[in-house]
């Protein structure tokens, strides 16, 4: 038996199951699917069961919250005390975190039980999950296909029902794109809503944590746990506590959905376009109105992102130097040799490529031409979105131009991989929230996801729209055969 987050919570509340029982069942499923999917990097039965027992004990003592005892998975980017936190890299192969990330702390405080640590592209750099030092993740719908990235393990785990929900992060689409590829629901909140403390940094000004789950309702419940001000993160927003599920049941009548024409032109695969078109028809049926808008500088998002993100990454990843923790080369002649060998051995190719790109665009004589120019583009893209929101409440877009591609298909062509991020990057550059939810299937029975983009702090509205869609359709209930 597998459950949504909500179902699991209800069963626990009704006393029909226990946290230990749920955890054991899911651990068995994870074990069974690991060989085929490779969705997890670390599973630690004892740590999981200890958390489950604690949750059961606190329920017995009458201290249970809404989600106490519900099992979830954490992306291996969130530091968790006592757990290996590898971030998909050989660099951190043996790194056991001595502290909890803000997100992990909140999940633990809510009584959620950690099933394990999900696979990901190394340091969250990638769109296919093939950049993991622990092997690629396979798409549960089609094992020849990639699950998307960088939160491919979280998306695949939820799709294969190996966990009711999982934490994830999104720097350029890393929640929304894998959610779309795996036929699940993923929410990337407004920048600053979820604490970045303890989330291994890729590109600090773009990184944002969020949930992946089967349903929008579950995403709302997860965001209620994950969101909130954290004084340890200076970019975390000071805002009143919100109930993100408050508007789930609002009707969509009068909702204006903007269709940016730049997102629906050349480059969008026909199968994806068709599924999106049917989804929009469904939204119309629910009372929404679809209007055409323009986001004229959309294509500039790719170069801007691939300047800013590598620039920040090149600096963020400097701490992995083999001096204090992490991989250190076995033999070296002097300090520089130690740095060079440790980093050469510890980092994979895509990480090295982005560090080099980032160091280049920040270097003397190139800074203005690349980094500063990219920051200007970033402001222009934000302005485009604001102009768009003058005409609509939410913006609809594909999450990716195609359904999931084949493993290895773009392995030798990083540029082709980067271009596939066209529909998700702008949201991160502007700091906006976005949600992806399943709306059907395309070529080879691979899922298609629709992305809804909202203005700042409109998470509740995005969740409301997706939830209403999910009340009227059953795409989100489809599960792949294991």
């Amino acid at each position, binding site marked *: 038996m597998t459950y949504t987050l909500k179902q699991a919570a209800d069963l626990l509340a009704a006393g029909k199951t226990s946290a230990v029982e749920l955890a054991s069942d899911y651990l068995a499923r994870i074990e069974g699917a690991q060989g085929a999917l490779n969705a997890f990097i670390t599973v630690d039965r004892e740590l999981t069961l200890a958390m489950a027992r604690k949750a059961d004990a606190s329920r017995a003592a009458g201290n249970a919250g809404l989600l106490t005892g519900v099992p979830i998975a954490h992306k291996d980017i969130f530091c968790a005390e006592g757990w290996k936190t590898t971030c998909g890299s050989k660099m951190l192969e043996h*790194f056991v975190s001595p502290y909890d990330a803000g997100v992990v702390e909140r999940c633990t405080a809510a009584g959620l039980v950690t099933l394990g640590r999900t696979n990901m592209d190394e340091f969250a750099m990638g769109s296919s999950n093939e950049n993991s030092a622990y092997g690629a993740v396979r798409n549960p719908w089609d094992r020849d296909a990639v699950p998307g990235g960088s939160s491919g393990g979280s998306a695949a785990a939820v799709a294969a029902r190996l966990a009711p929900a999982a934490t994830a992060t999104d720097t350029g689409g890393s929640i929304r794109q894998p959610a779309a590829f795996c036929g699940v629901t993923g929410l990337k909140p407004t920048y600053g809503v979820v604490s970045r403390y*303890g989330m291994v940094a890729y590109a600090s000004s773009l990184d944002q944590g969020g949930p992946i789950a089967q349903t929008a309702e579950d995403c709302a419940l997860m965001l209620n746990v994950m969101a909130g001000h954290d004084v340890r*993160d200076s970019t975390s927003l000071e805002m009143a506590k919100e109930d993100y599920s408050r508007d789930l049941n609002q009707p969509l009548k009068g909702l204006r959905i903007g269709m940016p024409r730049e997102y629906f032109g050349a480059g969008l695969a026909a199968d994806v376009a068709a599924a999106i078109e049917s989804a929009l028809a469904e939204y119309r049926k629910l009372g929404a109105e679809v209007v055409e808008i323009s986001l004229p500088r959309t294509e500039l998002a790719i170069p801007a992102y691939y300047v800013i993100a590598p620039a920040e990454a090149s*600096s963020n*990843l400097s*701490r992995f130097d083999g001096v*204090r923790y992490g991989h250190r080369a076995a033999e070296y002649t002097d300090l520089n040799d130690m740095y060079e060998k440790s980093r050469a051995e510890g980092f994979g190719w895509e990480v090295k490529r982005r560090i080099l790109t980032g160091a280049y665009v*920040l270097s003397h004589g190139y800074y203005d031409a690349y980094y500063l120019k990219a920051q200007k583009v970033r402001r222009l893209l934000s302005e485009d979105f604001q102009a768009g929101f003058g005409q609509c409440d939410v913006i609809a877009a594909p999450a990716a131009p195609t359904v999931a591609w084949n493993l290895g298909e773009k392995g030798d062509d990083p540029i082709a991989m980067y271009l596939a991020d066209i529909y998700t990057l702008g949201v991160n550059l502007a700091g906006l929230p976005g949600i992806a939810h399943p709306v059907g299937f395309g070529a080879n029975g691979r899922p298609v996801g629709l992305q809804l983009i909202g203005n700042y702090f409109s998470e509740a509205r995005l969740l409301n729209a997706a939830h209403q869609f999910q009340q009227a359709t059953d795409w989100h209930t489809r599960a792949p055969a294991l």
Partner: protein
Amino acid sequence: MQWEVVIGLEIHTQLSTQSKIFSASSTTFGNEPNTQASAVDIALPGVLPVMNRAAVEKAIQFGLAIGAKINRKSIFARKNYFYPDLPKGYQISQFEVPVVEGGQVTIRVGDQDKVINLTRAHLEEDAGKSVHAVHGMSGIDLNRAGTPLLEIVSEPEMRSAAEAIAYAKAMHSLVTWIGICDGNMQEGSFRCDVNVSVRPLGQKEFGTRREIKNLNSFKFMEQAIKYEVQWQIEQIEDGHKIQQATVLFDTESGQTRMMRSKEDAHDYRYFPDPDLPPLVIDEAWIERVRSELPELPEAMQARFQSQYGIPAYDAATLTSSKAMASYYEATVAAGADAKLASNWIMGEISATLNREERDIADSPVAADALALLIRRVMDGTINNKTAKDVLKKMWEAGDSADAIIERDGLKQESDTGAIEAIIDEVLAANAAMVEEYKSGKEKAFNALVGQCMKASKGKANPAQVNEVLKRKLD
């Protein structure tokens, strides 16, 4: 050829905050290695910096003290380079927009005042320390990593080693005065990088500079600058060009030696730190800091001249530290004459403190005790010479001036009859000297005074002796 020296300073002052600039760890000096290094300080994956407002407040204090512009919005930037004592692989500093811009300070060399302009002062974090040769290996101590620094950058306006030292001392005095830095140079709380170049006198363009790094004593700074200036002049006169470089001063050999040339200079790849929003300082904050700022040395110096009627030199010396200034004011408040108090403090008190390497705040003779001693000179109870002996005893035993005068019978003899008797005795016993004086040898008079003082065991009032002796001889 006549050469002109051009010097600019970058001073790193450790701000005396309880906790580090971006973490909650303590900044205490000298604890066991790595006992003050939190997850943030050792740069574990995922940790983030949080600005310590106390450090910002100290930067504002400094900016106000030098009449600088406090930027309402300044930016933290990352300075990227690899070094084992730099845990993140970058230092958080300020680059394009520092917290403090401009400002000036007046220095005095000889009896010349000179205004030195400042370029900027910016907040940054200190690095850790590499500890070499521990069991034949290198170790890293991150206790210091993240200690707040205010880097104070001057314009290249100093023209001699003496001016550079005067500037550095003025800055040292100012930052300790306003209490933003403990000024402990041995512990590295106040470190100077000195940019030195030379040019033919009258030439407008600057020569190529070399930067002497990390000088932590005024003595070494002076030696280093003098050596460096001489070296540069010799190089140029021998037909060599100066290459821009960073050099270290070897205190053993007294020479500077190259650390790295411009070609090896780092490209620090500065960019705004995305983990820290711009540092915003509002008017109210500035005004509160302004209202809490102590009276500054320059203002106090002017006040000392007008309020106490002491010369500029005295006022400058007495305001060279806050402790000395308050000691002086307390002495005067306890009844000592303002000029006598100044003389005593700049003279005997300072000399003894220096000899014993003590700070005036820990002087064994407190201000009111000194004031009593001075009052006993003023009211004629003892003379100046006796007073010096009394001070020595006060210093050693901690007794009051009155107790020592009483115990040792040092009260000055001012009774005219008694003095006349002594003088008569001396005149009788020194007939030859009397003759010399009468034949026109003025010196003999002083010798006779000395004899009288000796005969009185130093207790006779010298003024009275003079007067009576003169009357008897003329």
